[in-house]
């Protein structure tokens, strides 16, 4: 059971959850100034909406929910601004470039991904998370945006295409490019071992 809402104390929200919200926003936006703005907007919105907070969830979960909406709004408005969706950003060509690095001329893995005995064990390893977060940070902005909406927020491909104004084919291509890049990055940055 979540504890009942104590009091409306935005300064305490900032102290207790500010860094968390900031990192969360930074992970998605990869832009420090924008992430700071998002935290501010989230707390301001929370202040106005405090009466409607039911205390069903923790304050952090509540604030994170507001933040997610703010980030999605930002993605929406950015999708309409040309500097965030450059016309020469060709997902198909970008995927082809990565594939050329990972597959030989006959389309076989140059360095095949290894099968691990117990992949889920990685999720309990700090080392894995460090590598995974680093790899996520390495994604190009468009890839990061589409990938986050799909995998972390759980939006459908259809919705993402509409929000970001890209075709569903390009959306699949971007997602595949992101996944291929992530697994390649993990291969370099994380050595699998269960003996921990």
């Amino acid at each position, binding site marked *: 059971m979540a504890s009942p809402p104590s009091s409306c104390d*935005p*300064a305490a929200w*900032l102290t207790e959850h*500010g*860094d*968390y919200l*900031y*990192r*969360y926003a*930074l*992970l998605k936006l990869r832009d420090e100034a924008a992430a*700071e703005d998002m*935290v*501010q907007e989230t*707390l*301001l919105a929370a*202040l*106005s909406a405090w009466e409607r907070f039911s205390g069903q969830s923790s304050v952090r979960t509540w604030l*994170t929910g507001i933040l997610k909406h703010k980030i999605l709004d930002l993605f929406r408005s950015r999708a309409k601004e040309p500097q965030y969706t450059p016309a020469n950003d060709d997902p198909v060509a970008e995927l082809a470039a990565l*594939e050329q690095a990972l*597959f030989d001329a*006959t*389309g*076989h*893995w140059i360095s*095949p*991904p*290894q*099968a*691990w005995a117990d*992949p*889920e064990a*990685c*999720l309990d390893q*700090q080392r*894995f*998370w*460090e590598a*995974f*977060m680093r790899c996520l940070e390495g994604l190009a902005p468009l890839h990061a945006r589409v990938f986050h909406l799909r*995998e*972390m927020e759980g939006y459908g*491909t259809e919705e993402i295409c509409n929000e970001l104004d890209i075709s569903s084919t390009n*959306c*699949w291509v971007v*997602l*595949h490019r992101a*996944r*291929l890049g*992530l*697994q390649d990055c*993990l291969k370099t940055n994380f050595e699998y071992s269960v003996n921990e």
Partner: protein
Amino acid sequence: MLNCKDASRLQSHSYERPLSAREWIGLKLHLLICKGCRGFAQQLKLIRQACRRIDESKGVGADAPGLSPDAKTHILKELASKQGEKT
């Protein structure tokens, strides 16, 4: 016969849309004979699981830098002025 490049695309697509019967059979046959692609299948699954867990985990890196003191001061000021408006 599918090669690994095509098979990896299909695997990724299978997370987004239903594969056609032909694609599905082709992929299954390829996975039977290709260890590398079975490894890739596992990685895709792990990536998805990791993403689902990111919020609860220390994933949002407790050691990563947080808000700068300047930003905190600024946000506090904005909050205080908004609170002032309300009362």
